């Protein structure tokens, strides 16, 4: 279960685990619950996430699409390791997310 913090209109979600195929179904439900509650600004905190795989990347894209379809919003990815930062850059995810 992710740690979720709401402050000043921003929801910060810290999965605390790797975002990989075995975890995607649970994480997707958590993200969709937040989007369906009307939140527009999400920060995903990767400080305890060492790895993501293509299923996890697909999940992030799908969450971004859900947010767009529900009227728009912004997703920021924070506290990425150097390896994850490089991966996201090469996979062109920086076109879709604010990476801090």
């Amino acid at each position, binding site marked *: 279960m992710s740690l979720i913090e709401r402050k000043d209109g921003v929801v910060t979600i810290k999965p605390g685990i790797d975002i990989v195929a075995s975890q995607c179904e649970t994480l997707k439900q958590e993200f969709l619950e937040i989007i369906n509650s009307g939140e527009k600004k999400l920060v995903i905190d990767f400080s305890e996430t060492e*790895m993501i795989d*293509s*299923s996890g990347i*697909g999940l992030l*894209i799908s969450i971004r699409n859900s947010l767009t379809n529900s009227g728009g919003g912004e997703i920021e990815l924070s506290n990425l390791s150097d390896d994850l930062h490089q*991966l996201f850059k090469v996979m062109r995810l920086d076109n879709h997310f604010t990476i801090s």
Partner: protein
Amino acid sequence: MQDFTSTHTPNGISCTLSSTLANIDRAIACFKEFLDSKPKITVNKFEIHYAIREALNNAVIHGNQKNDLLQVECTLEINRKILTISVTDEGKGFDWRNQLHKKQAGSDATSGRGLESMFMYGFDVQFNDSGNTLYLTKKIM
């Protein structure tokens, strides 16, 4: 049929797993432990873990369709500064020749990044004829 087994070989490690997503995580933990036990090898372990994970995802999800009655065999070996990974599933294979020539996935695609990432991390990518065994090789220091 065993759900999960791992065996150390003289130069590497081999895992046999039934096709569940949880078993991918168990296999990755074994490969991590093996690589961590080789401090003299200077390699970006993130890249190795990522490539093995993608290869196992492809075998379990696409090859064996997450049918836990079907198995995946994965080996990692290091011989003379060459790291070799092989992953075999029990599926019918796929048209890898066509797949290798596809352009990279669109930046908003929710799938199709697995093979791209293996090339990105400098692996030589080969398949057996039917496409149900993947071979990845990479020179290491």
